[in-house]
């Protein structure tokens, strides 16, 4: 390959850790932020986040960042902003902020774009939007983040001609020279049980792509985000003191994957592995799983028919009343037609074929 573009002098850099892409998913659920307002207003959180973003960008000259807002009814890109549909870009907003001599221009660009998008998002939110829901589109935002990461990874390996061709399979050995991506979720709302399946799907996609999902939990509690970080080997932190947000960001979430190999992650060790049932979206301790389609239910369905795939299931001995008194009469009758050999798979519903 002819190195006419003069990338030769980057050769030495190749040995060092590669750049990393940080995709931040910011939960902008208005309900949750209103509750959090006395301790940590959104504006303060954004300022802290901007400092964190700047720190991330400063730690490697090729580091990238992207921010998605997970709002109450939609997910919106805050940075990079989507191309405006019309040609004429409003110049009056951008001009003054970007001409600030005291600010590094890339930082100012991100700050400007992020704030503009956020204000737009909030100004377009209607009362109706807020009153009709109390959750946030976390699963959608995670999906957006993953697609962005995928695109960025491909783009990076394309443009980087000096690097070896990236293996197409994402499961290959960890590449240290390629773009390292991670997702940071700043979550304020709980109650994501309704999005259990999509969230778990994105989690497993992230696991396959070796993208850790870090969770910074300002308020609320969500079982599934904890599982997401655990599955993808990310960091989960439930903040004891939301006012120290900056400290948490800089200390726990700034190191990229390369550095994390040498650090002990401050993640919480107890993970709630419970799942939500498919029928009522309840988080269940004991669930019933269809052996055909693996749907989870909180109670055996009526007539032992799986609600999802309509398979007839045999429940075995389950649910029979415990018999503690021996039968007085010598009448032999076995309940449920049980064979009397409950093996270790006694309780597993089997397809009734």
């Amino acid at each position, binding site marked *: 390959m002819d190195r006419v573009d003069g990338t030769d002098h980057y050769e030495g850099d190749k040995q060092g850790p590669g750049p990393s892409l940080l995709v931040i998913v910011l939960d902008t659920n208005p309900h949750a932020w209103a509750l959090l307002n006395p301790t940590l207003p959104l504006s303060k959180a954004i300022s*802290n986040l901007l400092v964190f973003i700047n720190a991330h960008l400063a730690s490697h000259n090729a580091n990238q960042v992207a921010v998605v807002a997970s709002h109450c009814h939609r997910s919106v890109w805050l940075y990079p902003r989507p191309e405006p549909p019309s040609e004429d870009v409003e110049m009056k907003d951008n001009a003054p902020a970007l*001409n600030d001599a005291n600010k590094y221009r890339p930082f100012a660009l991100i700050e400007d774009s992020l704030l503009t998008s956020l204000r737009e998002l909030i100004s377009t939110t209607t009362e109706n939007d807020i009153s009709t829901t109390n959750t946030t589109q976390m699963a959608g935002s995670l999906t957006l983040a993953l697609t962005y990461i995928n695109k960025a990874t491909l783009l990076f390996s394309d443009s980087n001609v000096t690097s070896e061709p990236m293996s197409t399979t994402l499961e290959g050995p960890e590449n240290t020279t390629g773009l390292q991506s991670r997702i940071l979720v700043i979550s304020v709302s709980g109650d994501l049980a309704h999005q259990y399946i999509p969230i778990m799907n994105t989690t497993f996609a992230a696991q396959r792509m070796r993208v850790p999902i870090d969770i910074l939990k300002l308020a609320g509690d969500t079982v599934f985000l904890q599982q997401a970080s655990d599955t993808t080997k990310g960091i989960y932190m439930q903040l004891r*003191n939301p006012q120290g947000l900056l400290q948490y960001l800089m*200390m726990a979430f700034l190191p990229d994957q390369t550095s994390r190999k040498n650090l*002990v*992650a401050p993640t919480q*060790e107890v993970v709630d592995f419970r799942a939500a049932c498919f029928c009522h979206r309840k988080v269940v301790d004991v669930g019933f799983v269809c052996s055909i389609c693996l749907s989870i239910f909180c109670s055996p369905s009526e007539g032992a028919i799986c609600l999802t795939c309509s398979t007839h299931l045999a429940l075995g001995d389950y649910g029979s009343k415990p018999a503690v*008194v*021996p039968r007085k009469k010598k009448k032999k009758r076995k309940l449920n037609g049980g064979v009397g050999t409950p*093996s270790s798979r006694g309780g597993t519903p089997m397809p009734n074929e």
Partner: protein
Amino acid sequence: MASITKGSAAYKKKDGTLGITQNEKSLQWLPLGASADKAVTIAIADITNLQQTPETAPKVMLKIFEKSPDAPEAVTHLFHFNSPSNPRGEANAVKDVLTNLISALKAKDASVPTANGSAPASAAMAMASAVTSKQGLVAAKWFDDNALKVDIELQQSLMKKDPSLHGTYMEALRTKPDTISNSQFNSQFWSTRTNILRAFAVETSQKKGSYNVLSAVKPRQVDGELKMNISAEQIQLIFNQHPLIKRVYDENVPKLHENEFWSRFFLSRLFKKLKGERIVETDGTDPTFDRYLDATADIGPIQRLLGLHIPNVIDLEGNQENQGGSKGGNRADFTMRQNSVAKVPIVRILNSLSEKIMANVAPSDVDPADPIGMDEETFNALALRDLQGDSEENRIMLNIKQQSQFFANEKSEVSAEAALYAKQVPAEVLSNMRFDVNPQHMNHRVGGGLDLSSAIGVIEDSDSDEEPEKKVPHVGSKSSLNDAKDQILEGVKSRRTEIIGSDAQSSLSGLSQKIFDRLTLTHATTTEFLHHFWLVFLSGDPDRAGELAKMVETLERAMDRINSVANDADAERDEIIRRHKQQIRDHFERTGKKLPLNSSAIGGGGKVVREMMEPTIKTLHKATKEYKKALTAEGIDTS
């Protein structure tokens, strides 16, 4: 001619009745409603072999090999038991009577050839069927939980291989309540472990097949003399795989000494050729063996293969004449060409060796009940399916429903957060938010950008450590940052102990290895009994209620056992403390200095035991509570 034992069975697709005649001399099949001239009668004395479909197979068929003294070949009869009510039972009845009669006959007349040796042609077949039928028997056993549970031999050998399981078994056996008999205990113990038993049964019944024996024999040169170890089985295998060597051996061994034969053979060119190695000029010659170099020797198994009926779809040789001639065209690959033995000897040798090895292995996928000749499967393989219409899909349909349609309206559970959110007025929420992100309120600098250094609220010089109560904590205050740092460091610390801190010493928590082992065993047995309890308790079988009461007793005793371990641990700890005190006293007497006794630094003791067993103790309580609840529900006082 009424039969004693009979069953309805189809023969050559005709319905009829199969039975044994009253004089017990022959087996008779009478077609349904037809005249007796179509009947089939087989003399029991002529039956050389019986085959039956395995117990698990849906079709019940009995195959009878008949060979009358004057007939050259055995004739097979296949009966398909098709009684609507109980084909298996009828088949078994007929078969049992037949086996009894045959064995009685054989005992009387020793000259009757045994089934396996009746005719050389059928010997392989009989052997194959013997293997398959035995496999069928064992396979049936794997799937039967009850058979596994009563197979003491299997259990014993499994425990021999797994000492920890043996320990659990012995401990549980020792501490079981006297009211449970040994056999009851045994079946309970194994009923929870049928999966392990099954895996073990499968594992032990697997055998190694034959291997390329010539490459396994490694002669070595010792003091200029060739030494080798060759066992009788290996010689057997060599003869099996290489009939040529058998021939050479036959023709030469009386003349040659046996040892000399083998040692010369392993140096000969013939050996190299059979092994597939290239023969080089420097190889020594041996007139005895070199004579056979060109012998197109190994036709034995090939012939046997040719004797087999190979379906045309997979018969490559059948297509040979369709190739485009030897000169160009679709010339076969050189490894496939007839006369290129010399060019790629190793490939050919390995191929032919594999062929030979496979020829000696009884096929495992042959259903003994299949009729000889073209079976249905072969016919299906030969049929031109492309010319037929679309075949019926043989799949289980999964009707996946869109889940949201039946869940969306059910917001039954409202979480704590959702309840809080519901209290808020949407308009207020929105206006607050808009106000919050308003450029005027976000520490904007004159230029329009955000003044981050003031926005994050960190004041470099603030000394909030000294006067914390004076200020209301704000975002980025020193106290909050310190608190955050503490939390992160706590997380790091607990992670670190998790990663590196779990060495052997600390995992014992100060208990001695002896006590700890006892505790492990107690834990294992307790879990064992809990397992049994829940199995019986949830079975809902009133016949097992008595057993259940005994199980509850056992659980109570399990608690006692934990306590006794705890007491012993306490005693152990006391002993250690006593020794420490003694040391301190000695030290005091020697030096006059008093050392402080730090008893909290000494680990172990009953407390640690109870901490370790806490989850188990909880489950024990839970089990007893559930049992009492069920008793109360039945109206029985649980005083």
